[in-house]
């Protein structure tokens, strides 16, 4: 019974972690940007979904949240990342560090803005489906099942896009050899635009689902970025499948810890795992080097 409970709860939370981290790692893999405003993007999606659900219902709220996630992603790109990348006064070799700092500050601005307009207390997005379902005697909120399904559907759609479409293959190529791609006549800036759009969808969906499953507050923005970052480092920077494996490692470790030891120590074992992996296998679980 307890084992089944851990299995179910761990699956849903891991799927959510995975979805949150996939966009983050894809962005790094394709365009070399570590977006430290990641938590802020998810936060905006969740808060907008919460606000909009009041007037347009749960489904409309979710759509509004998704749109807000995309808008935030594009704002990050056009207001923060692209100006830094194009700036002539920033030396080439320092661009990455400037992007890192720029997105970090942008993330803090987003967080403070959300706190200013909607207070620091957590908000929960109205679940798309209310009620509970019994799975072999374990009472599971139906919304939790839906969360896991939607996470995997989104990840599946991403897989199809990357592996089966021309634009997706170009994306993949950009992550392996951007120079070769430009030689083939592809415009890299279009690829970057595409990856930010995909990132916006992924972070938006993750934000709305997180908001409905656990709830988010502006204080969570930093933690969300940190948790996506550590999952991505654990799985191997830039590796999408590595991030998914790492998300499940972290999700299940946390769930097992909270059930068997105490919810207060929830994230300690996964942090120890992260330290061990960084020490013994710095490229991450599935990273290439």
């Amino acid at each position, binding site marked *: 019974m307890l084992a089944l409970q851990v299995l179910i709860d761990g699956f849903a939370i891991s799927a959510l972690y995975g979805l949150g981290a996939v966009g983050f790692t894809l962005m790094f893999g394709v365009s070399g940007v570590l977006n430290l405003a990641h938590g802020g993007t998810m936060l905006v999606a969740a808060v907008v979904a919460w606000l909009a659900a009041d007037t347009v219902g749960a489904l409309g709220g979710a759509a509004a949240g998704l749109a807000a996630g995309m808008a935030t992603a594009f704002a990050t790109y056009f207001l923060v990342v692209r100006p830094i990348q194009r700036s002539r006064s920033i030396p080439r070799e320092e661009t990455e560090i400037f992007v890192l700092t720029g997105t970090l500050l942008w993330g803090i601005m987003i967080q403070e803005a959300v706190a200013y307009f909607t207070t620091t207390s*957590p908000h929960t997005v109205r679940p798309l489906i209310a009620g*509970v379902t019994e799975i072999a005697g374990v009472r599971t909120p139906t919304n939790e099942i839906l969360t896991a399904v939607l996470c995997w559907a989104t990840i599946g759609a991403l897989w199809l896009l990357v592996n089966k479409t021309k634009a997706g293959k170009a994306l993949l190529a950009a992550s392996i050899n951007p120079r070769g791609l430009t030689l083939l006549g592809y415009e890299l800036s279009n690829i970057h635009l595409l990856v930010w759009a995909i990132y916006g969808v992924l972070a938006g969906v993750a934000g709305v689902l997180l908001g409905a499953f656990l*709830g988010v507050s502006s204080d969570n923005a930093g933690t969300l970025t940190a948790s996506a970052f550590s999952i991505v480092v654990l799985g191997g920077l830039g590796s999408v499948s590595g991030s998914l494996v790492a998300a499940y490692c972290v999700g299940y470790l946390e769930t097992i810890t*909270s059930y068997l030891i105490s919810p207060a120590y929830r994230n300690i074992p996964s942090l120890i795992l992260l330290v061990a992996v960084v020490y013994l296998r710095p490229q991450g679980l599935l990273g290439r080097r």
Partner: protein
Amino acid sequence: MSVMRLLPALAVLALPVAAAAADPIKIGIIAENSAISGIAIPNGAQIAADEINAKGGIDGRKIELVAYDDHNSAADAVRAIQRLATQDKVNAVIASYTSEVALALEPWAGRLKMPTITPGAASDDISKRIHADYDHLKYFFHGYLASSFLASATCDAAKDLLVDSKYHMKSAVIMSEDAAWTTPLDAGFIECLPKVGLKVLDHIRMSPDTTDFTPIYNGIEGKKPDVIITGISHVGVQPTVQWANQQVPIPQFGISSQATSSTFWKDTNGATEGIVLQLVAVDSVPSTPKTVPFAQAYIKKYGITPAYSGYGAYDEVYYIADAIHRAGSTDPDKMVDALEKTDWQGTVGQIRFFGKDNPSTHAMEYGKDAVSGLFVQWQDGKQVPIWPASVAGSNTLKFPGFVKLTN
């Protein structure tokens, strides 16, 4: 020249008026503006100041508020009280709903000789420290019920509503957040719950940054208690929403500070339906003749009901002004003497403080003829008073369908 000679005489004549214009009573406010329980402090205080000023002030002196946001950080709060004392030169300070912050301010109130009152922190240590070091810390007053009183109130209400009622409950699990204010609260619960007939099966202290409460609720359900007794303030929305979403079949009863404001219904999308909580005052119950008019004024101005700390801050502006009036001075020591003699009918009850010889020095008195508070239950978007019987009328407990009650 004659005009110049007349000036001193005119000045003497105009003195009371000039003093009123030039010498307002300045009160500093320190609170976390982005939290529900925090923003209610400057908001509540502003209404009191506006009311007093509209009537011409106290002894002709207007009330002027100087407010700073402490972001719920003790360091920011200490900087704020230093600035209030040295630069803004305020006469008194109303500060914070967080015990950790209030405890950090306490020695600074002493060093700066700044009469300071907290409208929302609950830790018993606040008054214990004053008792232990009266000469230095006497400038601090605890303007909200101490945690041990909150525990007593919860046990008294639980006895009437849960044990000696049709529910005949026998056991409880305590679920509280790990913070300074819950240490004495939990100790109080552990002592008084068995006395009213509720056996404590487990005691869970969770980290205030918990986001997933599923394991906690599953653990509690495994112990099969009749009720969950809560002590939560910095968390609120998430445990409440997850309780409803997961359909945890056990009722929640106790302290839930965020649920004291009417915004909680929207913040939880109505998941708070059925939650029972303690309040010092509620907009629908005339605890004193002042309660409802204040709550109405607050709703009119800010669109929501005041969180618990808003009532305290409103009363505090009044009795600080009253103390200055009675002391006839803003000298801090004379103000402390006057504040100790406070016997003020506020929005939450008759406000008095325990004296120097009581182990809870400067704690607000709890009791039927002092401040006793009440219990409400969220029903259909409203906080419905259900305890004590004198305010409940015909209201009874109503729990959502997923709560399974043994009766």
